[in-house]
């Protein structure tokens, strides 16, 4: 009997009222998402597609090139020792920044999670540097803290201890890495800490209670409960840190640029691409586009490898 009173789905869908409601919903959907979608298309997707197009052309001083060069821009970059060295610079930077950022932000989140008083205060204090401009922070690092002159903050301390000045950013030794890595850590650890704090708060309390009943304490709880439960958060953090490391530009450029130009050391891929495609008086949009496509492919490849390593997207994650 009940089957007799339930209308067939196609009958329901074709009722005039339902169709009108659906059109109404679609209209409001586009009213709300349309501007965002248009912005996304105009400022993100069309430029990406245009970059791909430009990368196959000799596009010097033009955005509407006519001289097709095939893979010449890609070949040029992939056989350019300076570009390959810049990828090496990224590897060194990433080798420091990824594990240290992960460990520092996780450590801060764990400490914050145990704090019983002024939790919001400490969370804000650690998060605050995230709101600081990379350019301004780079200026502070360069002009004050890591100034290589005798009145630089750290050099004053070194002199007070009887040491000699260190030319932090002048290319001597590898001291510039101390400035660059510490700057990036100061700027980003707070943000990833917040992600870990959110991840920690999602771990059910009864899991810890069950572990305690089983006699697990201290590091064993962290190793066998907290860390596995933060697997998704860790994967997200590592992926974001990796992408951010690849996109390193502001702090390198603003810390190291001089009136004579960017120095020949500590040159990550984006800085190099900027310098050869748009630096000085040049405007080689084909080469610059090819470089960004190469970087995008590398980021996507490494990111996918990372996700696979962490097993994200497996059935149990979706469950």
């Amino acid at each position, binding site marked *: 009997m009940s089957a007799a009173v339930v209308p067939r789905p196609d009958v329901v869908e074709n009722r005039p009222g339902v169709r009108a409601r659906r059109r109404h919903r679609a209209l409001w959907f586009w009213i709300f998402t349309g501007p965002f979608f248009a912005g996304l298309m105009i400022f993100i997707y069309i430029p990406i597609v245009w970059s791909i197009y430009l990368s196959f052309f*000799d596009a*010097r*001083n*033009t*955005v509407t090139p006519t001289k097709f060069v095939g893979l010449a821009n890609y070949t*040029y970059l992939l056989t*350019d*020792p*300076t570009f390959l*060295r810049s990828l090496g610079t990224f590897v060194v930077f990433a080798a420091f920044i990824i594990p240290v950022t992960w460990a520092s932000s996780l450590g801060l989140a764990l400490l914050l999670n145990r704090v019983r008083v002024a939790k919001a205060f400490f969370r804000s204090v650690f998060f605050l540097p995230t709101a600081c401009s990379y*350019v301004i922070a780079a*200026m502070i690092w*360069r*002009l004050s803290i890591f*100034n*290589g*002159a*005798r*009145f*630089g903050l750290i050099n004053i301390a070194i002199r007070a201890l009887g040491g000699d*000045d260190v*030319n*932090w*950013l*002048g*290319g*001597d030794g590898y001291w510039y890495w101390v400035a660059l890595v510490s700057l990036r850590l100061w700027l980003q650890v707070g943000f990833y800490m917040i992600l870990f704090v959110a991840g920690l708060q999602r771990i059910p309390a009864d899991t810890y209670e069950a572990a305690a009943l089983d006699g697990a304490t201290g590091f064993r709880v962290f190793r066998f409960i907290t860390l596995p439960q933060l697997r998704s958060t860790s994967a997200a953090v590592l992926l974001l840190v990796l992408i951010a490391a690849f996109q390193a530009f502001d702090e390198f*450029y*603003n810390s*190291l*640029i*001089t*009136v*004579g*130009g*960017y*120095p*020949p*050391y500590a040159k990550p891929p984006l800085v*190099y691409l900027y*310098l*050869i495609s*748009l*630096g*000085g*008086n*040049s*405007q*080689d949009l084909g080469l610059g586009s090819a470089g960004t496509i190469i970087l995008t492919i590398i980021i996507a490849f490494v990111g996918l490898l990372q996700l696979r390593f962490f097993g994200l997207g497996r059935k149990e994650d979706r469950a």
Partner: protein
Amino acid sequence: MSIPGPVPRRRFLALGGGLAAAAALTACGSNTGRPSSGGASGGSSGGGPTLTQWYHQYGEDGVEDAVKRYAAAYDKAKIEVVWNVGDYEKAVGAALLTQKKPDVFEYGNGPTLDMISANQVLDLTEQISSAKDDFPASVLAPMTWKDKVWAVPQTIDMQMLYYRKSMLSKAGQQPPQTFDELISVAKAVATKSVGGFFAGNDSGFGVLANLMIWSAGAEQINSSNDGPGFVTSAVAAGLEQYRALKESGGLLGSASGDWSAPDPFVNGECAMMWNGLWNMPIFTSELKDDFGVIPFPKIGSGGRQAVPIGAFASCVTAQGTNPDAAKEFVRWLWVDNTADQLDFSTKYGFHIPARKSLVAKATNLTQGPAKDAVSFVEPLGHGPSQLWTPATSDAFLAAFSNVVLKGADAQKQLASAGETCTKEIKRLTS
């Protein structure tokens, strides 16, 4: 160490050194390419067509008013002067790709080869022809391509080595004429609190790179314009000598300002410093006659003393509103109108008139170190080649730094940079 902020006029010299300098840090120019109703533009009310003329933001007081005054005096066209704040080179490059391009614009050492190849600018050989011999050949060279002149120089700037007479004399030293002498003098005058020689907070790589080529008797690009001119044993020896300078302790690695600022020299942080003509009034005011100037010392027996020179030069856009009228305006202002040219070079800051015949009339350049500086321009001046691209410059800088900082083999490093240079020339000229 100072922020490399907007470096008016002298910025082209940094560009000549290879890479874009620091004005991007403060870039804020949102420019429509056309005169606005705000304070950034102004100009003549003359008859005829309306033309736009772009300038970068000069640091010296009065330049903006002066160029608007020159424009207002022109009666064959209405000239709208646009005063660009921010990253000027990027603004010009972007504007030339749009419909709203300037009719006349200044550019460091003339237009790039890419601008010429892309037909963005016009040949000004005819406009400059009546006075071509009155411009120093070394100034015109960077704006000449295939025997055509693509810009008219407005005023000349230069760099040189400043030294404190009292500091050298106290150490019993004479101003260095050769690089070997530079090493020994820098070491002799250096103390715990005073550096011997300072050329920037990057150990001098950026600003001295080209000089390591020119002073060794070589050129950036070979005479047939198809390969590097810097892959020579003399340049290699020069890079190794620079390493010796750095290891001697005579090179000051970091100071209160970069090489383009007056502070390190005025504060007595170094006895010798690479700097520009633009700071000479400050040095004269602060140090009186306790300083002198010399060119960059020669490297090796086949070397020569050298100074980098450059000039902001006026270019005409090919697809402007009225190219013929724009060419005539450039001829009127920067070729025929010597009174305004002299005013532009001598009344605002410290520069050398682009016309040789006007130098004698520049009374502030007729004595002391300024007179010495002027004497360097014609015989010792060098400007960047159009074929010296950022990628080539970058490769040479990498070679320079690898030799000095990592002790790499100079010949191999130069050969590697030379390959990049050849590749770049092929790309540019294909």
